[in-house]
């Protein structure tokens, strides 16, 4: 598992780094979060221009063919800068689903607009009581001519208030939590009979509760294929990369602070108990980074049995992130509690990532159960 990056990958990384350093300071982000929309269309356009939105797509689809490794590179840097724009939702989740499962017409209709930064997407799969179970779906889809009519409720759909399109999971067969009967539908976010109530998330983003009452949807791919499972694995690859980026920033901020902050006449970094804490934070980051890279390399190689590894990584990276975030706030003392300092915002981002697609405990259990099943 040699992780020597190609020249193209290094170029991608350095160009994202440069752009975010120049255009996405913490103060800029604060303004974006506080703005009425809560995201920056201009910034999104700049991402598109730099080629970030097309990086993982195949060349056939008009992308750069970078796959999961380019997603990893971008997401890691986005994690360092706490980017709020819906990269994972639009490119990794929706873009990935369309590319992997969509018809030729659907790919042609949707992917170019994603790459060009014209359209925002969100994935609506969570429901009240579904918790982290992809198959636990009560929303129904009833066939009507070429289309389907969707009815039901989705909850905590991240980026839905910003989205032009939604991909919605709905039941076409079977009873609640029957894995085979869940299909995916493309729905216009402004469709008739769709009611969307927006709210703010802990990490400064927007999500929505959505009610569908006979809302028209277009089937993505074919009925009843368990597409969301592979989608979750890809999402985990990207979310872990984001988390690892955030951890790196927390560690360097904490280290820097410990070398400057004085108590009892000395810098707090001279206290052995804090030195050892920071060593453990360093190790936690190193291990999370390694496992995250291993997952993305495996995703890129299209290896089988990825799902168990994805759960393992989500769990391990999640616990590592939680440890680092907790300790970063703790070592910053009262300052770590303030909205002014970025540390608390990284804490909140990591907390948010830890919930998405299942928390560390959920994935640990899944990792164990998939082993027992093997």
């Amino acid at each position, binding site marked *: *598992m*040699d*992780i*020597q990056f190609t020249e193209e990958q290094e170029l991608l990384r350095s160009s994202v780094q440069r752009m975010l350093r120049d255009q996405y300071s913490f103060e800029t982000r604060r303004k974006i979060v506080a703005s009425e929309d809560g995201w920056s269309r201009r910034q999104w356009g700049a991402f598109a221009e730099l080629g970030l939105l097309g990086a993982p797509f195949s060349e056939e689809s008009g992308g750069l063919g970078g796959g999961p490794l380019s997603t990893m590179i971008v997401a890691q840097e986005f994690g360092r800068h706490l980017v709020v724009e819906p990269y994972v939702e639009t490119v990794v989740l929706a873009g990935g689903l369309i590319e992997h499962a969509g018809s030729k017409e659907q790919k042609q209709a949707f992917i170019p607009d994603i790459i060009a930064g014209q359209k925002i997407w969100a994935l609506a799969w969570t429901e009240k009581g579904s918790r982290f179970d992809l198959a636990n779906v009560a929303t129904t889809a009833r066939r009507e001519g070429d289309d389907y009519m969707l009815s039901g409720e989705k909850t905590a759909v991240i980026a839905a208030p910003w989205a032009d399109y939604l991909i919605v999971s709905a039941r076409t067969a079977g009873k609640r939590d029957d894995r085979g009967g869940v299909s995916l539908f493309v729905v216009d976010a402004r469709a008739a009979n769709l009611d969307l109530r927006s709210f703010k998330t802990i990490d400064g983003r927007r999500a929505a509760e959505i009610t569908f009452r006979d809302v028209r949807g277009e089937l993505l791919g074919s009925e009843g294929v368990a597409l969301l499972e592979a989608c979750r694995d890809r999402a985990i690859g990207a979310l872990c990369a984001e988390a690892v980026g955030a951890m790196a920033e927390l560690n360097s901020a904490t*280290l820097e602070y*410990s*070398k400057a902050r004085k108590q009892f006449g000395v810098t707090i*970094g*001279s206290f*052995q108990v804090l*030195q*050892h804490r*920071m*060593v*453990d934070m*360093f*190790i936690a980051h*190193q*291990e*999370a*980074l*390694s*496992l995250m*890279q*291993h997952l993305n390399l495996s995703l890129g190689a299209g290896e089988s049995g990825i799902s168990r590894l994805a759960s*393992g990584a989500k*769990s*391990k990276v999640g*616990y590592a992130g939680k440890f680092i975030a907790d300790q970063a706030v703790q070592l910053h003392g009262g300052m770590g509690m303030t909205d002014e300092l970025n540390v608390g915002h990284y804490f909140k981002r990591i907390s948010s990532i830890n919930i998405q697609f299942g928390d560390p405990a959920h994935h*640990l*259990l899944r*990792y*164990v159960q998939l*082993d*027992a099943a093997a």
Partner: protein
Amino acid sequence: MELALSPEDAAFRDEVRAFIAENYPKEMRVPNPETDLTKEQSLLWHRILYKKGWIAPLWPKEYGGPGWSITRRFIFEQETSRAGTLPPLAFSVTMVGPVIYSFGNDAQKQKFLPRILSGEDWWCQGYSEPGSGSDLATVRTKAVRDGDHYIVNGHKTWTTLAQHADWIFCLVRTDPSAKPQAGISFLLIDMKSPGVSVRPIITIDGSHEVNDVFLEDVRVPVENLIGEENKGWTYAKFLLGNERTSMAGIGRSTRYLDRLKKIVKAEIPADDPAHLELSKEIGRIELDVLALEATELRVIAQMARGIDPGPAASLFKIRGTEIFQGITELTHRAIGNYGLALREQPLSANQFMPGPDYIHTASEKYLNARKLSIYGGSNEIQRNIIAKAVLGL
């Protein structure tokens, strides 16, 4: 998880794998190879590797090493540990050997290196002393020059397998007036010299691995001094760097984890909540192993490209030992009441141990593994090293 290997390296891996399968001595497959083998038995594999030319992967070719790349060294390490082979005595091959070929004179090289390779000489390490703990520079054992000899007086302790040793490499104080690190020399002492005596230290698992070594007016020829007088600390640090390599112990941890899973399956019904509770803890450790393995591969890949990994060895020592301790602890928990039983030492054929075979060494392993976070520079010392060298604190 595998390194991405070139076809040549993949062929090498297959060769190593096949060689182990065909040649590893059956006599060495005992319940606890670290304690249950006689000196002669534990040298069987050493001699086979010596004949094959694979005994000293670290050594340069001119001194009898195989001339492997970093990648091949890693493959060899990985394959031998995955297969559960007992590694050749580290004190000889990994520790004193490199000190001798790096800092010794020609006569010393010619005298000692071939005997280390062949397994003729068994070495032990005379670093620790009563009261020195992790602070090695407090060496009090004195060596006073008397013509062509040093007269050595002192007390070494925690000396692993000194009961088998032909030679001991010692840190001795040759200049009592200098600063602690500055007055130390590196001396090779024949264990058969008059005045050397060994007393066993029995550890909490009941085994006899470590010893006190007493040195009373031992006459050591000056020709056994390595390098320069009072420069011993430099050589000692060099050696400690070697000691901490490959401490991640991935192969061993993976084997013990597999075994642990089988034990849990056999001991606890699947519908017992304890089964899930234990399985989750095993899952967490398994992920720790996976993450450490991925880290090790990342470091190996960097080293193969000529990038200095810095104090990565400290990270591997800390996490590798924490992980293995965790595994032995879970294994001991998994066997429930049988965890009360401890094999008697020294072993004899007619001793009774209750329960299935797989539990017989669980208690002693659990107890013995407590040492891992203490020896080789305690894990707290390793954290100090990372804090200083990586974090700049």
